[in-house]
């Protein structure tokens, strides 16, 4: 269930209630107001019966009142015989009606008395809130209410659930209610062992934390049959949870792999296809990330759409910078790779310092569009964050587009021709200088797009690029220079390997082990996973 849809549902419900509240509240207040006055006057020990009566005569509209009371923010105005909520923002206290949210400015601290609650009442209030939610019109509200109840089942809530269970139509809500009832059955020591064991077996298909806690307590039960059933159920749950933990780890591995892919895919073109070693590649990523930041600064009211502007903008900024670097520096160092390395390293220093001078050395916060935040909760132990999911998809999309550009467009044809045999391509009329500049611009532009994606995951600072440069070179070298598919495989292999090493070794040691592995791998297979064959391989 996605949090967004849930939030939308709640918003929708609120709107509906808002429409109703004018009429219903007016009708209700006739019956509620005396009760509320009574509540305000009552001593703590007399409050529970009053609350029972309030619950009996009202529906969901009373929830704000109960919540305010639960938080200890409900106050009683003696003179008017009315209750009011006390709220606080930025250290300023103010009072507002709990039903209509109207701020009542004329009330002073001295006019009101706090309505005190104790732990006993708080427990009652929580259950009452859940009971009221259980009869809500929205299935998701009902389901959440059931799940909240799991940890604090008692006689009254179970009775409510038992009453509601047969008439519930939504499957999810019904399952959750069945779970709650099974939990109740399992924990009743006075029931027959066979019933309890059947309930425990039913529980073994759930991954809820509360279920696991209950089963753990049941392993200390007096009845040996129940104990063994609980142990079996726990083991079954543990197995399932492990499977999902594996999926979770795999997802994080894929996510890291997609980041590595994005960071190195531009390098796969400049270094892999063109053979130009560009140490300023990381700074192209950084420029992309800063472009995202600037675009957001320019359209602060449209953060959700800014990313669609940022992607082409980052491509242009980094791409143009790439063309500039190629024309001014790299084309003069043709065929001298070590000198190119040094010169581009100098450029990376200049770009870093330039960003430090313009934007300050501090990290900049890039906000995530609302449609990218949140997570996709598959079950209680597995939830995938949406931004990582989008970035994974985006990385694959960029990769596919790039492959198409290289294989199907005239530019791609020229790029491949020049990289395979520069002189022959020149003789055939290919403008090699122009192709070099365009290829380099393409690789740098893609690095800029990677920067847009990375700005959603990490802090945007002048050192952003440095953090990725060594990793991206490792990916390209590991995958095999001049082979885009190799880069894809290498990025995901390294990402998954790192994430699966992390639990046993810790993050830093995992990074070190992967580096050492690549160093050793390159000794064994200097041309990477997928070496180039034929004439292109020197």
């Amino acid at each position, binding site marked *: 269930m996605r949090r967004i849809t849930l939030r939308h549902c709640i918003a929708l419900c609120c709107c509906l209630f808002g429409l109703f509240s004018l009429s219903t509240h007016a009708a209700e207040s006739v019956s509620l107001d005396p009760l509320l006055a009574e509540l305000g006057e009552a001593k703590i020990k007399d409050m529970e019966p009053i609350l029972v009566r309030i619950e009996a005569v009202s529906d969901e509209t009373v929830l704000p009142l109960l919540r305010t009371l639960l938080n200890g923010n409900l106050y009683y105005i003696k003179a008017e015989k009315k209750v009011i909520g006390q709220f606080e923002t930025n250290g300023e206290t103010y009072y507002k009606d709990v039903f209509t949210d109207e701020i009542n400015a004329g009330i002073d601290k001295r006019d009101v008395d706090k309505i005190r609650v104790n732990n006993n009442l708080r427990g009652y209030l929580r259950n009452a809130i859940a009971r009221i939610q259980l009869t809500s019109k929205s299935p998701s509200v009902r389901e959440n209410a059931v799940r909240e109840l799991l940890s604090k089942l008692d006689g009254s809530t179970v009775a409510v659930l038992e009453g509601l269970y047969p008439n519930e139509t939504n499957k999810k809500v019904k399952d959750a209610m069945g779970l709650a009832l099974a939990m109740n059955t399992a924990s009743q020591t006075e029931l027959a062992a066979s019933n309890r064991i059947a309930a425990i077996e039913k529980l073994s298909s759930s991954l809820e934390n509360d279920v696991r806690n209950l089963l753990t307590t049941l392993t200390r039960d007096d009845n040996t049959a129940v104990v063994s059933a609980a142990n079996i159920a726990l083991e079954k749950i543990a197995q399932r949870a492990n499977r999902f933990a594996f999926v979770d780890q795999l997802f994080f591995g894929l996510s890291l792999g997609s980041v590595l892919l994005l960071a190195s895919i531009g390098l796969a073109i400049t270094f892999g296809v063109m053979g130009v*070693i560009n140490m300023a590649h990381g700074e192209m990523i950084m420029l992309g990330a800063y472009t995202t930041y600037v675009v957001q600064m320019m359209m602060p009211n449209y953060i959700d759409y800014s990313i669609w502007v940022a992607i082409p903008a980052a491509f242009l900024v980094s791409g143009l910078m790439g063309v500039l670097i190629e024309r001014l*520096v790299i084309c*003069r*160092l043709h065929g001298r*790779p*070590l*000198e*190119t*390395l*040094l*010169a581009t*390293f*100098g*450029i*990376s*220093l*200049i770009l*870093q*310092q*330039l960003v*430090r*001078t313009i934007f300050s050395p501090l990290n900049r916060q890039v906000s995530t569009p609302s449609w990218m935040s949140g997570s996709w909760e598959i079950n209680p132990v597995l939830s995938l964050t949406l931004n990582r999911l989008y970035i994974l998809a985006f990385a694959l999309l960029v990769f596919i587009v790039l492959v198409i550009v290289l294989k199907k467009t005239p530019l791609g044809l020229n790029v491949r021709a020049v990289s395979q045999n520069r002189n022959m391509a020149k003789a055939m009329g290919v403008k090699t200088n122009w192709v070099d500049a365009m290829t380099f611009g393409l690789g740098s532009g893609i690095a800029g797009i990677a920067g847009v994606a990375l700005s959603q995951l990490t802090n945007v600072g002048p050192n952003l690029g440095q953090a990725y440069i*060594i990793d991206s*070179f*490792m990916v390209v*070298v590991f995958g095999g220079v001049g082979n885009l598919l190799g880069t894809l495989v290498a990025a995901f292999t390294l990402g998954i390997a790192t994430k699966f090493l992390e639990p046993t070794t810790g993050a*830093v*040691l995992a*990074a*070190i082990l992967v*580096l*050492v592995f*690549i*160093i*050793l791998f*390159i*000794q*064994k297979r*200097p041309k990477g996973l997928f070496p180039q064959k034929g004439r292109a391989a020197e």
Partner: protein
Amino acid sequence: MTRLTAWFSEGRSTGKHTLPFVVILLSVTILASAANLFLPVDSIFYVSTYTITLLGKYLCYAMLALAVDIIWGYCGILSLGHGAFFALGGYAMGMYLMRQIGDRGVYGNPLLPDFMVFLDWKELPWFWLGMDQFWFAMLMAVVVPGFLAFVFGWLAFRSRVTGVYLSIMTQALTYALLLAFFRNEMGFGGNNGLTDFKEILGFNLQADSTRVALFLITAILLAVIFVVSQKILSSRLGKVVLAIRDSESRSRFIGYRTDRYKVWLFVYSAVIAGIAGALYVPQVGIINPGEFSPINSIEMVIWVAVGGRGTLIGAVIGALLVNYAKTRFTAIMPDAWLFALGAMFVLVTLYLPKGLMGLYGQLKAKRNTVMNKESQA
């Protein structure tokens, strides 16, 4: 005397700077030391201890530049990981100095350095054993970088990893070490590194005389290494190394085991870097994982590039000049230094491929062509 001159100048053109270099280096260091120790503080010729330490630091850098130049300028191996060997040598010296603190640390533990007490360690890790002996620590300062270089070089050169691949591998090596030494569990002081040193061989590290002595030792060792390297590079072995730089496959076809030459030269260079690191630490008083950072290693390359690779004297001049500029720049305009450094990388590679030492040759060649044209006209 003439025999001595002849010995120094052996190897013709490449060795012609050796004698003047050694003479100038030693006379300047001796004069500066004397000016610090024997002149009154208000004399205009007085050299402050700060300057002495700074000069000592520069000489360590010069030694490091020699190490980089020996393999890059003479053998064409661009190592972007020489900072690792330098830092390993530095850590060996740092461990010795740490053990010398004894019970004068903050926690007063006679055996364990402060950071281990802080981490609640009960006994000294095995790799710290013996580090209280000066000779053993110095042996480690040479053996550990040398061994690492041997293993890495043996693996890399045997499987013929060359060019930019090798450069990136060396960079990954120093990056991996950087990450490792940042970890507290490694037992090297983590983020803070090793510092708060008190004395070396019983001499107080803060005393002027100790500083001057360290400076003099650095200068003498630099001179010795310079002469020895010059000898090695102008010998038969040096000729093979040059041949490998200019055409590795041709040298291999002639019958030389090029990988072995490269490995041993790499180890020699790493050992020099280790010595430079060991001399550096007592003078600056700290060693931390920052020394492993890839940017440090790449800065060393630019010293050599500025001075002129392929000439030992060029490496020394480059290291001194760039570091002097760095000291001045970071004091006046700290922000501008990285701009200047970046510009130096670009401009030197574009316009001064042979560095300052090559500039003279470039100018002469230009004047010759101009004169030739004039005489033709």
